[in-house]
């Protein structure tokens, strides 16, 4: 995670009350319309990795495709800006890797794919040559440059797709599940390259993923979507601070815990076995800092020999689950208040 990354405040793009409803082709089936994105308003600054998280069907892929111009919005607008913050009349060059597909010609080699798409994109030939070499070596594909894509592993195909998305030096990169199904090493390489692109080359990357670890590692800002709505959006550190609780994890010998336990029963806690033998891990869920002081005093009075103590920091996964849970609870309450039915 890179909270320390300095980002410019100039926007890369802005979504204003963007909505997308998919209607069935058959007119009398219009009641089966699905709203994939609803009233989405978002401002993403240049030079950051923005990660969109959300359960399946939350509207992440639709948002990415709306940005790419592959789907037309039902309502709302998308504005793109140049590096000086001026509104662009047209969509800038966008590189994209879309969900579940490798988005390349399987029968051509990585090099041939880069040349073909470079040519139709109007990139000068000398640039295609230079960038193709650079991109293939960046993703460790130089020795596979002339092999047919269909003979490459899934990880390599994914890397070819990302290399292709980077061709032409696009300012905006849209990556839908870029590390889906990749081995650890390939996923790590892609994460490193993404950070490099943002920090050294000032690219803006929008990334959707179900892998919390990936988002936590590479994203500067996180947006959480559910049922087509953006329900949270902030820096990861801010999201974590917001959901940080006074939870403390204490490890001690089992015998000591037996002595301490009756006196600690006034506090809320969970206990579990440690990895070590004859050891208990107790997580205290405290109300405030005063509770912490009381707990420490209590442990000191009992003379409990502590093996370790640490404040539990919520992970992005914890934050994600909490935010989506709260959203569901609110939605249920609202529906019940209106006498409606929750779907």
């Amino acid at each position, binding site marked *: 995670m890179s909270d320390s990354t300095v980002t410019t405040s100039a926007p890369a793009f802005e979504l204003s009350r963007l909505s*997308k409803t*998919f*209607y069935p*082709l058959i007119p009398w089936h219009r009641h089966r319309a699905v709203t*994939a994105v609803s009233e989405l308003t978002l401002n993403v600054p240049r030079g950051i990795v923005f990660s969109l998280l959300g359960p399946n069907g939350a509207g992440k892929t*639709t948002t990415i*495709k709306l940005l*790419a*111009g*592959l*789907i*037309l919005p039902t309502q709302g607008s998308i504005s793109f800006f140049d590096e000086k913050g001026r509104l662009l009349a047209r969509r800038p060059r*966008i*590189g*994209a890797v*879309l969900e*579940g*597909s*490798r*988005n*390349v*010609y*399987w*029968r*051509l080699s990585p090099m*041939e794919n880069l*040349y*073909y*798409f470079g*040519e*139709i*994109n*109007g990139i000068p030939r000398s640039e295609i040559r230079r960038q193709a070499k650079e991109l293939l070596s960046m993703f460790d594909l130089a020795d596979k440059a002339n092999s*047919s894509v269909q003979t490459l592993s899934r990880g390599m195909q994914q890397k070819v797709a990302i290399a*292709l998305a980077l061709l032409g030096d696009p300012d905006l990169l849209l990556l839908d599940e870029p590390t889906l199904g990749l081995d650890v090493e390939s996923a790590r390489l892609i994460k490193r390259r993404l950070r490099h692109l943002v920090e050294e080359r000032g690219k803006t990357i929008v990334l959707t993923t179900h892998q919390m670890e990936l988002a936590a590692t590479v994203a500067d800002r996180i947006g959480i979507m559910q049922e087509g709505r953006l329900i949270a959006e902030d820096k990861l550190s801010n999201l974590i601070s917001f959901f940080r609780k006074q939870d403390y994890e204490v490890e001690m010998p089992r015998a000591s815990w037996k002595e301490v336990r009756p006196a600690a029963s006034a506090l809320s806690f969970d206990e579990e076995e440690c990895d070590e033998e004859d050891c208990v891990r107790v997580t205290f869920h405290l109300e405030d800092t005063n509770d912490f002081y009381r707990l420490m005093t209590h442990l000191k009075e009992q003379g409990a020999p502590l093996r370790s103590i640490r404040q539990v920091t919520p992970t992005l996964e914890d934050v994600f689950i909490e935010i989506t849970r709260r959203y569901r609870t609110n939605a249920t309450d609202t529906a019940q208040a209106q006498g409606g039915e929750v779907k």
Partner: protein
Amino acid sequence: MTQLLRLLQAEFIRTLILRWRYPLELLTGLTVMYLIFLGLFLGARSLVGETTGFELSLSGFIVSYLMWFFAISAISRLTYSIEVESSQGVLEQIFLNYPRYLLLQYVRGFVDFIEGLVFIAALLGLIILTTHRMLTMDWASAGPVALVVILTVVGLQGFGFFFGGLALLFKRIGQVGGVLQFGFFLLAYLPVERMSVVGQQLLYCLPLTQGIRLLKIALVDGRPIFASANLGMLAGLAANSACYILLGSAFFLLCEKKAKIDGRLGQY
């Protein structure tokens, strides 16, 4: 213009690489087309016998067969490429890199036509070897014949855009293509000249029929296409093809927009 030439070059290179790398597909296609011709040729000869009538109509038979190849190629190419490219996710990549998709399809149509000429030359060679029948054509009629072929193929490509547009929306419409191939086969061999005036007018509104009629005048009867008696027919062919390419393109653009509204570009 430079960008268009680069597009053309990129498509030529892509086609050449694929043909070079997968020669079996090309050979299979050639073999199947040749075997179909052989079946028809031998079937017709066994029915009619080695009569003068059969000998006279053989050249027309060959012309119809070659033009039928252009018809199925123009109609199936676009729908097939949309089906395959959407299943691989390449369709969306193309739209990202080159949003003027219709223009790209014009270029691809041209490349396909050139490829088709090479294929036809090979097929014609095999047919001549089998039937010992040469098509009569002097150098003076080469230009008009080329013009008629191009105009006919433009109309067929336009007709193909209707199905290309439907393929953008519904993807798997290959079976419709199969039925169309059969339909065009009938169309290529129908004795339009012997039908009623209304029937003739209706059939000449379809792609292929007028082109075949003009080609038979040049290649079977050995008469000039640019003769004053045939100029009306040539103008009719040009108007017919212009209508098909314009209407087909407009329909294709509508389907493209609908596919973007419904989010169907990436579906397969």
